[in-house]
């Protein structure tokens, strides 16, 4: 990135999380620069989803603090929106109600919230499906609904928990391309949990490599050389390929 000093949208400072005897996170500290996409990458059991849920305020930290836009947070708030791995759509509600649900909970009137929801339903490419129900949609379309719901509350920070892991490979690639455009066009901070090395390198401005037992940040990687390239040429870029390779080297010892 061109800017040398970037303000942090989210900072995690000395966070511990224990489940009884089990230490899920130990002294985790990490900064998430404003307007960028940071991936939390690591093998299963490294605590990446736990960290994301602590940032979201869905799980309390045992110790340490999470700072969002200068304020310490312990509960969910309008400054963060969450995209779920299993979409978390209400099966009894149609697409437009699902997308508008965040606004509904914030007390926005029906006409206004449906107007906003329609706009984002269009943005994620689901125009015409406003009155369909989740069970009538494919996995990819369902996640677009989840994304539209998170976008429509217009939070400055978007938390995504393995959002593309439950969709098929082709849809996943399309999602990754769309995500790059989203980061470019929406002035939001993205925190993105994934276990796919290629996905992390492809979409991220910054990758935090987490290692398990005990969970810690082992490395922060900032791929920069190919970020300005168009979506098609990234996967052929030599820095992209080298970064994927070097991350795999660090991780392979943790895979049995």
């Amino acid at each position, binding site marked *: 990135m061109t800017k040398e000093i970037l303000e942090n949208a989210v900072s995690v400072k000395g966070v511990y999380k224990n489940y009884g005897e089990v230490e899920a996170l130990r002294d985790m500290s990490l900064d998430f620069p404003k307007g960028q996409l940071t991936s939390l990458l690591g093998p299963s059991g490294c605590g990446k989803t736990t960290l994301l849920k602590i940032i979201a305020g869905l799980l309390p930290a045992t110790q340490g603090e999470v700072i969002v836009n200068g304020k310490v947070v312990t509960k969910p708030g309008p400054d963060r929106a969450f995209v*779920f791995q299993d979409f978390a759509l209400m*099966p009894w509600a149609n697409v437009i109600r699902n997308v508008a649900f965040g606004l509904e909970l914030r007390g926005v009137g029906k006409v206004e919230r449906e107007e906003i929801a329609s706009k984002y339903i269009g943005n994620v490419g689901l125009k015409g499906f406003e009155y369909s129900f989740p069970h009538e949609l494919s996995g990819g379309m369902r996640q677009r609904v989840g994304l539209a719901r998170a976008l429509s509350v217009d939070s400055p920070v978007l938390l995504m928990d393995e959002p593309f892991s439950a969709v098929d490979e082709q849809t996943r690639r399309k999602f990754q391309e769309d995500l790059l455009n989203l980061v470019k066009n929406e002035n939001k901070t993205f925190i993105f949990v994934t276990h796919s090395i290629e996905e992390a390198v492809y979409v991220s401005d910054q990758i935090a490599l987490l290692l398990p037992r005990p969970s810690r940040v082992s490395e922060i990687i900032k791929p920069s050389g190919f970020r300005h390239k168009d979506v098609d040429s990234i996967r052929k870029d030599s820095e992209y390929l080298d970064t994927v390779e070097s991350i795999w080297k660090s991780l392979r010892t943790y895979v049995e």
Partner: protein
Amino acid sequence: MYLFGYKLPGMSSLLIWGLLWEIAGQMEVSFFLPALSAIFSTLLEIYHTKVFLRALYETGYSFCAGVFFAVFIGVPTGILMGKNRFLDELLLPWVNVFMSAPLTALVPILMVLFGFGLKSIIITTTLFAIWIIILNSRAGVMQINRSLVDMANSFGASPLDALIKIYFWAALPEILGGLRIGFIRAVKGVIIAQLLISIVGFGALFELYSSRFLMTHFWAVILVLFALAFTLSELLGMLARKVDYYASKRSQ
């Protein structure tokens, strides 16, 4: 139902059993089993009489009131038990005890506590229906998809919002299943109460007809009662099928 390769229309089995009943009745197998046709003609005679309509009203009123309390206490209690571990551990043993207890044995105690009138009948009806409604609502909430709860929390849902907009709907298929069984148990409850507590409604008719050996009258009332219970249960079944599509794949 198929017979010799032909598809029979729905409820054909009822016709077959009805026919068997008619034959047995005509053959005068037992004094207690009059022919079905005789029962129906008696029904046509009595259904517009004041006595019958009054009994129908009294039973219907107690039933509706009993069911009303069972639903409006049972469903929220079940949802809260499914949500709150402490409440669950506090109440579950009692719910299980009453669920399997012979409630009829409690009726005399209710009579002492609440008198010989309508109040005791309604409470008995509620007691018959409420436990299964609580248990089913609780089960519906307990299998809720955790991400839906996280989702509601992450968008700032208040506890009441979460209860009404997420938990209730997520548990709806099980709740309706519980209501169906609960309503049928309430029919049982209201009749038992009317026989034991004060002789009113259909209970009084049963008492009257059986003590005077008016078997066709007796069966006519039973048929009406069966038909009402069956219709009620089918209506709830239809409602339950409407939400079935998400009971099986709730995670989406």
